[in-house]
């Protein structure tokens, strides 16, 4: 890459006329970069959400003790907690306190809804070790608490996880398509630039210029155009992502919140314009050298 970024003397740079090389190319690259950064951010965010879903919720079970008699329910709940804590498949166990239950049910029962004699099941939240399944703890649990019902979070989260995973791969596919479209844009721009400056190239060839020398002239100009387009596109996309992030934050959703980009995600996005410049230079170089090879 350092060879490609080799600086040129001011006099060499003047061999091509000043100004933009291929008209709207920087703006086309800016639009491509804008869409690429958005798609990549979506892919990274969805990847984070999928990981968070799997690690935070997908490996948990919720145990309900459905015994209607309050005394027996308490006894079963205590036995269930003790049995779960003893199982090797269980990483942690937490029984929801009455205050938490009241808070969860408040939207349906209203304030003070649990103060009457309404039979509310005891709730136990258990975090399983990675790889453990809810079925493996079921026999031990039901022997300790016959009225226990186990809700496997992984079971109802699986379709959502698959959807998020499909969207993530779709986003990454879009990134690949954008990269291919950007490369095609550079090919067209390089060919147009060669046609525009054909007379100058012929003179340079007759003076004994090598194909590499000629290609370097175009390569540098296309890299500058790509850098301009990349920075503009990235800045616009970053602004859009920050605004979307604020909207997501205002929703207060844990799942959507987990789709927010971490610092490493932003770093990966910031590398996209740099990679775009490198890609533009390589594609331009290959296109120009191939076209020059057909000239005398």
């Amino acid at each position, binding site marked *: 890459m350092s060879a490609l970024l080799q600086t040129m*003397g001011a*006099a*060499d740079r*003047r*061999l091509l*006329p000043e100004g933009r090389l291929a008209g709207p190319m920087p703006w086309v690259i800016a639009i491509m970069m804008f869409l690429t950064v958005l798609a990549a951010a979506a892919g990274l965010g969805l990847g984070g959400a999928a990981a968070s879903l799997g690690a935070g919720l997908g490996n948990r079970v919720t145990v309900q003790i459905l015994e209607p008699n309050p005394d027996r329910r308490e006894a079963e709940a205590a036995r269930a907690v003790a049995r779960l804590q003893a199982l090797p498949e269980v990483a942690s166990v937490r029984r929801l306190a009455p205050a938490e239950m009241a808070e969860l049910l408040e939207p349906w029962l209203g304030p003070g809804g649990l103060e009457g004699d309404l039979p509310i099941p005891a709730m136990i939240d258990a975090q399983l070790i990675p790889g453990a399944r809810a079925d493996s703890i079921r026999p031990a649990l039901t022997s300790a608490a016959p009225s226990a019902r186990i809700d496997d979070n992984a079971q109802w989260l699986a379709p959502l996880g698959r959807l998020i995973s499909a969207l993530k791969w779709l986003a990454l596919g879009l990134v690949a398509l954008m990269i291919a479209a950007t490369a095609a844009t550079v090919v067209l721009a390089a060919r147009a630039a060669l046609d525009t400056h054909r*007379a*100058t190239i*012929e*003179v*340079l*060839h*007759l*003076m*004994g*210029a*090598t194909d590499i*020398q000629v290609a370097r002239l175009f390569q540098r100009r296309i890299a500058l155009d790509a850098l301009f387009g990349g920075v503009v596109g990235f800045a616009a996309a970053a602004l859009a992502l920050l605004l979307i992030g604020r909207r997501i934050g205002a929703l207060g959703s844990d799942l959507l919140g987990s789709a927010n980009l971490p610092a490493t995600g932003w770093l990966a996005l910031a590398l996209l314009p740099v990679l775009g410049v490198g890609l533009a230079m390589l594609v331009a170089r290959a296109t120009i050298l191939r076209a020059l*090879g057909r000239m005398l």
Partner: protein
Amino acid sequence: MPRKRLPGFRRRIGVVFQDFRLVTHLSAFDNVALPLRVAGVDEKDLQGPVSEMLAWVGLGHRASARPATLSGGEQQRVAIARAVIARPELLVADEPTGNVDPEMAKRLLHLFDSLNKLGTTIVVATHDLHLISSIGSFEMLRLDRGTLLDPTGALRHPPRRAEA
């Protein structure tokens, strides 16, 4: 010849085109400096020779002028200066004196003569036989419809086919 050897070969040849083929967006100085820059000569090393060459062809005061602002004769002199600046082993000139006044034409031919004495082979295509005859060391060959002929019966070094 393999393509990769062409650049080195072309650097040994200077060409003066009838239509000049100057790079339109470059100044007269930059046009003349082009062969040296292509050959990788440092900027500090080419300033002197280029300025000197431009002065020699009478364009020292027009160094920063673009070709479009130069007359036909001035463009031709820039083209000649560009062709000879790198001291080529072979100089091919197509009607190099067609657009200059007789005095400048003689100066240019004397420049070619000097280059020839320094070892450069000069090939000049021209219709001005009178002018070319004034340079004693030139060998004249006449090309008629692609065939070399002797225009005066006094070819000093006729080609082998003509002898046969």
